[in-house]
């Protein structure tokens, strides 16, 4: 299996060097999926709406997400994925991380612009505000970074391609406990943020399930930059590992400051720590950071590698997990439109729900009956500035 992958990777590098050839050769790249025929009944333009946090602090995530979707849309149009003469248009709206603006943006897209489907919003809290607007209008809305529990319970038009924390973290803890022999840990989490707090909930449950004791819990608030007080308190108990539920910017600080305080043990994190900036910015300090996530930049999946290099070529930056999920989301949406051969909202919903075993940068992707994603998360450990599979070394 591994050999096949390796071979594919080599092939891919060659393909990248000769993009023109790639089209002809039908090598693994997005859009390569032969389960449904090229659509014939689509209008000249199919417009999908995209709601991301493009201004304010949330734009750190929303900005790359927008670029990812745009990249996907360009690829889809160039490859004629929706058939000759059909152009996919993404209409972007900013929600600024604010529930009211998310509702307004969603209403504008769904009711005024009459888009076929919507991707977004960036935050779970925005999704809980705005997704019902789409649901009430019988329009598909797909979260690409919403990890909160119960999101898709809002209705049969609500989808997401982002693995909820509850599908990622338990595996991470189980594996880490096994490999590292954890007995007691200190927990540090952001308690004023939905994302980090839900992550904390799942961590605590998972630690309990694996009989790992929690010596001390500390919290921080979004925008905090000095974690010395919390870390000093946590490290006083000499834990086997630090468990951290934080977003990227805070995670960098936590990792570097913990190392500065002399802590050398493992640091276990969730989705939030899974950002290229975490590794880049914390340098050697990141050695021993264990991350369970839906996707990682080091993923050996050939589609993932193509995606990363395309993104780098287009924007001169490395994509993070949320951007990858946004990119995948756009492709999933296009695939639903293609396979449904219709720009009708309900047809798109049905076609999307039917997607099974679709090859994506996230791995082989399916929706379950609750419109949640099914694919294998990865548990990885940072060594010398790069991620490797946990337990695989030595």
């Amino acid at each position: 299996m591994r050999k096949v992958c390796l071979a594919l990777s080599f092939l891919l590098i060659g393909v990248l060097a000769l993009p023109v050839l790639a089209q002809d050769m039908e090598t693994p790249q997005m859009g390569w999926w032969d389960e449904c025929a090229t659509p014939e009944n689509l209008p000249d333009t199919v417009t999908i709406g995209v709601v991301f946090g493009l201004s304010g602090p949330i734009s750190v995530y929303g900005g790359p997400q927008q670029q990812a979707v745009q990249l996907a849309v360009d690829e889809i149009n160039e490859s004629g994925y929706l058939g000759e003469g059909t152009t996919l248009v993404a209409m972007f709206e900013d929600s600024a991380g604010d529930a009211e603006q998310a509702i307004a943006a969603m209403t504008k897209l769904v009711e005024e612009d009459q888009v076929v489907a919507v991707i977004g919003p960036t935050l779970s809290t925005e999704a809980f505000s705005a997704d019902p607007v789409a649901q009430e209008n019988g329009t598909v809305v797909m979260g690409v970074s919403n990890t909160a529990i119960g999101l898709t319970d809002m209705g049969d038009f609500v989808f997401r391609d982002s693995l909820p924390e509850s599908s990622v973290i338990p595996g991470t803890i189980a594996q880490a406990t096994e490999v590292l022999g954890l007995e007691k840990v200190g927990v540090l989490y952001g308690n004023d943020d939905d994302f980090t707090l839900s992550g904390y909930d799942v961590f605590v449950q998972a630690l309990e399930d694996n009989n790992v004791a929690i010596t001390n819990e500390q919290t921080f608030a979004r925008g905090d930059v000095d974690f010395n007080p919390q870390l000093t308190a946590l490290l006083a108990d000499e834990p086997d590992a630090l468990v951290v539920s934080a977003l990227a910017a805070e995670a960098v600080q936590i990792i570097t400051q913990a190392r500065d305080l002399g802590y050398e043990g493992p640091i276990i994190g969730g989705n939030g720590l899974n950002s290229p900036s975490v590794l880049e910015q914390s340098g050697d300090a990141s050695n021993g950071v264990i991350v369970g996530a839906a996707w990682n930049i080091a993923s050996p999946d050939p589609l993932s590698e193509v995606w990363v290099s395309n993104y780098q070529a287009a924007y001169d930056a490395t994509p993070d997990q949320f951007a990858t999920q946004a990119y995948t989301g756009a492709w999933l949406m296009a695939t639903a439109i293609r396979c449904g051969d219709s720009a009708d909202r309900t047809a798109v919903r049905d076609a999307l729900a039917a997607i099974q075993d679709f090859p994506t940068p996230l791995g082989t992707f399916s929706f379950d009956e609750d419109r949640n994603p099914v694919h294998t998360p990865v548990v990885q450990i940072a060594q010398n500035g790069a991620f490797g599979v946990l337990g695989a070394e030595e």
Partner: protein
Amino acid sequence: MDTLIQQGINAISLGAIYSLFALGYAMVFSILGVLNLAHSAIFMLGAFFGLIAIDQWSLPLWLAFPIAMLGAGLVSVGLELVAFRPLRRRNAARISQLISSIGAAILIVNITQLIFRQIYNSTEAYLPRDLIPSDPIVIESLGLRVQPVRMLIVVIALVLMVLLQYLVNRVRIGQHMRAVAFNQRIAALFGINVSRIFIFTFFLAGVLGGAAGMFYGVVFLNVTPFIGEDVALIGLTAIVLGGMGSIPGAVLGGFLVAGLQIFSIVIGGSSFRNAVVFLLLFIILLIRPQGLLGQPESTRA
């Protein structure tokens, strides 16, 4: 005990940043009687200019630092000219000036956001990690680990504060500032160019705010157009705690808020730290409505 000393050092270095930031607020307030809510944007610009100087122009830190301060100072003067002076001319209520400063802050943050996107294709960027040697100074006997950058900040902050104190008390323009703060009309009668003093005050406030922002960037490396929001409320709390418009009060307030935040984490966990800060503020205001080092209100009337 070891942790307590360690936390004490944390509190002092954080307090130094808060104090420098709060000083700018306090100086503008002492002269105008108006809160400059755009001061947090100036703080952010300090970090931003520092980032540009180091990351884009590859300048050394010792050169980037004055550039950040100067840049922040100049934008601060721009604030006075655009957001405050026209309103003063129209005898507008102070509350209108407060709102115009909010408008200016929104403007600055959004423009910075656009520039960020242009340069970094993102709304965040990081200062290089090896800017200052990060090997901590270890004092084994006390079990202490101190990052050099933190010591550096405390030292530079103290130097800046002493310089400011000297300027205000010993130099002519500083004395003119105090005269204008005491009574504009009388100061004008004595031949002091009041509008020049305003500009100078805004410049100084901007320089100090920019320095605080630059420190913040150097310590925490992560720079975004929004870091001002993190300190806006803290700075306000510091000057109210210390006494509005009092320069030593702002310094005291800054250290006090930092100390409280950190020790409430040590004692009761970090969930309540801002609540603890505000409860203390509340109690102090009820006992001393003018803040710790502020002048009683009756003397201003």
